[in-house]
């Protein structure tokens, strides 16, 4: 760890990432403490818990947590651990509960996290105070437009400041909803990738790989009648797109749409019978947001990375994807579909169908991404012989950077390096 892992030398047009960052257990341990325990981490979506008592459980940064609604209808996050001996107080995936009872010795907690039942409490001495032994919360919990985040660092900056320029892109997601609210759709894709988590960060907004890794998806789109323009001079993608840094390590690719959008750009793959519904959604969008904003929402695709591990793909569908490393060469990925609350049954069906063509463990593209990342991870075994990955695409350009350049990847790595050296 004495050696620099990221070399960023604009004067020499040199940007390199050391491959030890993908394999070294010490790097992994340091990431857990210096990144995952410090940053704001996506915990869930408010729509997952709609009524008081609703809960979902999951693992965040290696810790079991409960996302729930308390008795006052507030979204809460609790550490899923009994204050007595440390057993998890809830082992169900989701549900509605009056409270949480630890099955080990029977301590129980109400919806607000208060300890409200201790079997044989009279045997505890006077120093025992139930009020000090409620369910614990991560030091910081906050949300932005339905997206709930936690930080395990009490000193973390306010969430709104942390999100910086990423807020604009979350706004573009939420603006798709006539009700002003998005909701998580039932059905969760949870899978393991045998690769370093940062490779998925890169992959999530690396358009440079699209034409070669996803050739079969593009072929399917073409055969289904979707117009895939030939790349123009200087481009490798069918449509123009840019990479943008958004501050604090967040970044995005922001592309002219060619691949269709449930809100709201029809492509032949949706079927003729879907056309009127997409046109209706488009008309509502224009009426509500005005022509310019509607075009901004509906005619571009955005792949957003919120540092360190939240990806929002807003294009063929809206995907929320988050991932937690469990080892240098392993991560657990969770992906959901997000849709406008109250959208029609037809629109919902189009959205989900469009999701599956590209995304997910059974899609026409994601399995090839997973294969690519695992292939990279295997290649990383040569890191002592070939220590550096070059990441200079677009570095000499003034002004606009393409989606197939690497400005956005560099933005991630520069901040990763900053956290790791802090």
């Amino acid at each position, binding site marked *: 760890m004495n050696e620099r892992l990221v070399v960023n030398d604009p004067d020499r047009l040199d940007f390199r990432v050391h491959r030890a960052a993908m394999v070294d257990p010490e790097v992994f341990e340091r990431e857990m403490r210096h990144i995952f325990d410090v940053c704001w981490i996506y915990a869930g979506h408010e729509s997952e818990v709609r009524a008081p008592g609703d809960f979902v459980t999951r693992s965040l940064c290696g810790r079991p947590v409960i996302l729930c609604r308390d008795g006052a209808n507030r979204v809460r996050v609790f550490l899923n651990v009994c204050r007595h001996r440390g057993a998890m107080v809830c082992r169900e*995936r989701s549900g509605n509960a009056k409270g949480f009872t630890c099955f080990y010795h029977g301590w129980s907690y109400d919806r607000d996290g208060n300890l409200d039942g201790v079997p044989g409490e009279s045997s505890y001495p006077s120093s025992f105070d139930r009020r000090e032994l409620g369910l614990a919360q991560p030091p910081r919990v906050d949300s932005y437009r339905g997206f709930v985040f936690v930080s395990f660092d009490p000193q973390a900056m306010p969430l709104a400041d942390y999100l910086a320029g990423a807020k604009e892109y979350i706004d573009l997601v939420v603006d798709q909803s006539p009700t002003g609210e998005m909701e998580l*759709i*039932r*059905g*969760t*894709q*949870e*899978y*393991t*990738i*045998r690769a370093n988590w940062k490779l998925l960060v890169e992959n999530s907004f690396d358009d440079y790989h699209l034409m070669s*890794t996803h*050739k*079969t*998806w593009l*072929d*399917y789109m073409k*055969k*289904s009648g979707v117009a895939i323009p030939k790349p123009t001079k200087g481009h490798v993608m069918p449509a123009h797109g840019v990479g943008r840094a958004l501050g604090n390590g967040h970044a995005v690719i922001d592309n002219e749409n060619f691949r269709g959008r449930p809100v709201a750009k029809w492509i032949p793959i949706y079927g003729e019978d879907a056309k009127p519904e997409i046109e209706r959604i488009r008309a509502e969008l224009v009426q509500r947001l005005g022509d310019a904003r509607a075009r901004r929402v509906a005619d571009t695709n955005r792949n957003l990375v919120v540092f360190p591990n939240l990806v929002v793909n807003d294009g063929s569908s809206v995907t929320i994807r988050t991932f937690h490393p469990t080892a240098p060469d392993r991560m*657990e990925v969770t992906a*959901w*579909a997000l849709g406008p609350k109250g959208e029609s*049954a037809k629109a*919902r*069906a189009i959205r*989900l*169908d469009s*999701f*599956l*063509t590209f995304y*997910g*463990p*059974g899609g*026409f593209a*994601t*399995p*090839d991404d*997973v*294969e*690519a990342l695992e292939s990279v991870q*295997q290649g990383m075994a040569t890191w002592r012989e070939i220590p550096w990955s070059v990441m200079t695409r677009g570095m000499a350009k003034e002004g606009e950077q393409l989606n197939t350049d690497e400005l956005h990847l560099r933005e991630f790595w520069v901040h990763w390096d900053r956290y790791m050296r802090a």
Partner: protein
Amino acid sequence: MNAAREEVEDFLYHEAQLLDEWRLDEWLALLTDDAKYRVPSNDAPSGDPADTLFLIADDIQRIRGRVERLKDPHAHAEFPHSRTRRLITNVRMVSDTISGEMVPDTICVHANFVVHRFRRGGKESQYVGRYRYLLRRVDGALRIALREAILDSEELGRLGAVSFIL
């Protein structure tokens, strides 16, 4: 519709052989022109793809596209092809319907499966679950109108992907 269990079992074993041998065009020929192929998300095994996110919810167009893709060496997740071995058991013809769809002239078949998948480098995985089929007789022969593979594991987890025909 009438079919003997023996005929149904032979049909499923034949299908398994075609898939294990990657004879995907012959497999396609076992499907009706309106066939569907589905793999639900692990946490919503009885959902409807119209309102629930699945792993796979193909209509016949996307099934054909999937086969086309899997035959292409650029389907990187399956090139080289996985070696698979399907064990199909507990085959039963049942009277209930799938997803509430009442379809005349069809039979509903349930079966259990273990699909072993092997890739180079010691990668071995077992997909365990149950199939739900709607079979229809077309010109005297059994054909697949719906094929749903429901995984038992709580999450897809280390299985990683369903990149072959499960």
